[in-house]
């Protein structure tokens, strides 16, 4: 059987050094080939090279789709190819549809451009396609605009548009990024069905677990090169290249608590030395001085009782209670709209609960005026998903940390404690990488020596290997500082790895809670069971 797509020695450059080089692979009809890599690995550029849409200079000894040589094709030939023979499911499901046009128009575009159907026939075909990709009530959905659709429906509409002309090759560039776990599972099932029906699929993803579910063949890219390739099973179970091995090791799914995700040893920096301000009043002075988590986890640092918060008609948080002990992590897992971020804001006393209380270190926290809280604010810190926007754009790293520490003398030591070099102090956060930004955010959060850190999706926008480093760092800090974490994430694998206890939230309510092992090992609630089933895992 001859390959539908054949790529040999592909290189792409944008004037300077090549961003992709020496990439070779074949895709056969009915086969799913995946390219895995982190941001900047060149995987998306490789995919776009097949459509002639890189915007750079493409060279290859072979870049063939069926009988067409893409490298030599005229713009007109390429336009005929796109949407008709090659369907593209774009990255960023939420922004891939024109917000000003009805969904039906976007789906009908390939039909209009490549087919000879009348407007009425196209409309009928759009409804057919929407049904095919599992959109309920297609007639209504077709007339709506993207912003009236949920993320999952939008991604289904994008897929409907890509398969409108029944292309022989589907390129899916991060098709499930930013989607909820259960939605992601549905999209992956749909792609699998299309493959079974005979389409060739090129899947681009940063997520090894997603890839392992669909692809029979795997390419691992790093720095614009393929570092390893082979049958998926083989690559994942017996990686030959150290980069592949580290990528697999970085996946937190199914990894025990405190097990390291990177090969770096636990931080050697004596964190105690950088944490300046000793609290004048130690409410926990009766507890043992040792930082052995096992010995002081009886002390309750934070508790919530019957928290409710309503926005208009939406009950964002509905009767949530929990208790967090010293040195432990309480994971909160839920999909978008489950109320987990609102819960975080209530705990941080940034919002006032409609009813219920939060108690911090044994004293009332939400029920008292802000002036009574201010002195105790340093005891509870926070890190967010978007670390960058939590920094004043005018401030350098040094000023941010000095402000949090109350003096700049300890800034270098603080930076080292989070694994950053002191030279970074002079820079502004926007010139740092995503991982470095999150480390600075963590440094700022631990500077006032808090007892509790609220972590709201702290690793969700980071690459897998960076995510692993940040998670390891959080583990180190927890053990050396005796921190307690309220760890919020949509990612079941991450929560499972990080938490001692867990709350599963849905529509503002806690559907299940308990020790992590018990909840995930033997889920009682159907929602939890579904969530666990939908989470992709490594073979």
């Amino acid at each position, binding site marked *: 059987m001859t390959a539908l797509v054949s790529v040999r020695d592909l290189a792409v450059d944008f004037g300077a050094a090549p961003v992709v080089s020496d990439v070779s692979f074949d895709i056969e009809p009915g086969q799913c080939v995946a390219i895995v890599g982190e941001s900047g690995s060149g995987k998306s550029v490789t995919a776009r090279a097949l459509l002639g849409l890189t915007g750079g200079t493409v060279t290859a000894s072979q870049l063939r789709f069926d009988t067409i040589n893409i490298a030599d094709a005229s713009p007109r030939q390429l336009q005929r190819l796109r949407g008709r023979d090659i369907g593209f499911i774009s990255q960023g499901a939420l922004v891939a549809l024109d917000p000003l046009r009805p969904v039906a128009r976007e789906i009908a575009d390939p039909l209009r451009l490549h087919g000879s159907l009348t407007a009425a026939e196209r409309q009928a075909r759009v409804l057919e396609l929407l049904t095919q990709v599992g959109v309920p009530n297609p007639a209504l959905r077709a007339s709506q605009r993207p912003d009236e659709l949920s993320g999952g429906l939008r991604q289904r509409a994008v897929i409907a548009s890509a398969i409108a002309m029944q292309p022989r090759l589907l390129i899916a560039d991060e098709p499930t990024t930013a989607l909820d776990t259960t939605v992601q599972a549905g999209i992956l099932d749909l792609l699998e069905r299309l493959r079974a029906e005979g389409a060739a699929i090129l899947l681009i993803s940063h997520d090894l677990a997603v890839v392992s579910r669909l692809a029979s063949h795997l390419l691992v890219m790093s720095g614009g090169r393929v570092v390893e390739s082979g049958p998926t099973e083989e690559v994942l179970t017996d990686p030959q290249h150290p980069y592949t091995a580290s990528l697999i090791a970085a996946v937190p799914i199914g990894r025990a608590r405190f097990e390291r995700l990177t090969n770096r040893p636990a931080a050697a920096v004596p964190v105690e030395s950088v944490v300046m301000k000793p609290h004048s009043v130690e409410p926990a002075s009766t507890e043992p001085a040792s930082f052995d988590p096992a010995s002081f986890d009886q002390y309750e640092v934070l508790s919530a009782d019957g928290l409710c918060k309503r926005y208009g008609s939406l009950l964002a948080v509905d009767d949530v209670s929990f208790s967090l002990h010293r040195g432990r992590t309480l994971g909160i897992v839920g999909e978008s709209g489950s109320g987990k971020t609102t819960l975080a804001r209530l705990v941080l006393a940034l919002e006032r609960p409609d009813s219920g209380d939060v108690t911090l270190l044994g004293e009332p926290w939400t029920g008292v005026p802000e002036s009574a809280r201010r002195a105790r*604010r340093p005891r509870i810190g926070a890190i967010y998903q978007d670390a960058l926007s939590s920094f*004043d754009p005018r401030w350098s790293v040094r000023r941010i940390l000095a402000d949090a520490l109350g003096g700049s003398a300890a800034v270098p030591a603080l930076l080292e404690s989070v694994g950053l070099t002191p030279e970074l102090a002079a820079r502004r956060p926007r010139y740092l990488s995503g991982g470095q930004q999150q480390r600075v955010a963590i440094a700022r959060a631990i500077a006032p020596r808090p007892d509790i850190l609220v972590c709201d999706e702290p690793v969700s926008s980071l690459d897998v290997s960076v995510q692993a480093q940040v998670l390891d760092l959080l583990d180190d800090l927890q053990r050396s500082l005796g921190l307690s974490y309220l760890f919020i994430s949509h990612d079941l694998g991450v929560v499972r790895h990080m938490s001692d206890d867990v709350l599963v939230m849905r529509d503002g309510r806690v559907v299940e809670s308990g020790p992590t092992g018990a909840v995930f090992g033997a889920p009682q609630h159907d929602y939890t069971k579904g969530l666990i089933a939908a989470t992709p895992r490594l073979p």
Partner: protein
Amino acid sequence: MKRLLAWIGVTALIFLLIAALAPGLLAPADPLAINPTQSFRAPSFDHLFGTDESGRDIYTRVIHGTGASLLIGVSATAIGIGLALVFGLLAGLGPRWLDFGTTRFLEVLFAFPGLLLALLFIVVYGPGVITSTIAVGLATAPGYARIIRSRVLVVRRAPYLEAAAVLGRGWWFRLWRHLLPNVAGSLFVLVTLGIGQSIVWASSLSYLGLGAVPPAAEWGAMLSAGRTYLASFWWMTFFPGLFIMISAVASTLVGRGLQERNRDS
């Protein structure tokens, strides 16, 4: 390219500042000296920009008018931005009812577009340099106020203000250390762009005979005087107008340059 343009703007601005602060360096002659035998001379080597109806050298007058003209632009901008700051901060920082009231009030002012508000002010207080300067300031204030208000609202909702609250920083700390400095950054751009606009507006009023009056060596007044002779002696209006344009272009280029830099950093 953008950088180069910004530097051209800076150079032009420096030239204008020299002309404003030490006009004698660039044009040693007396801007008010009349010479009836030399009236209405076209531009030549003797009189670079020609002469006016009394034989005064237009080049000398334009250079010596820089100070007064820039002062009008700067004062009008100061008035406009000052008023806008009060309204913008009140609306952006105050309670909801205050924002509502201020926004409605600005909406009413917007119904008097541009020059109209200035003309209304002049009809009440009469023409002249001071009234036309205030009029321009008043007329530009609603636009600035709207920009400042929306900027304040954006910064007020910024996650870094919340991060400061989590660190236990009080309202005043957040206001002085975070909010105001971040609003001020865009204010600087507004001021630079605004000075050019104010000079253009004030000169339009002068041209219509409602601003500075001849024989003062001020660009607007020179325009006003030259208006009568527009058909036959174009240089009387052209060169003062050219300098108005140069200052407006310079302020626009520098303002845009600053804007780009703000965007980058």
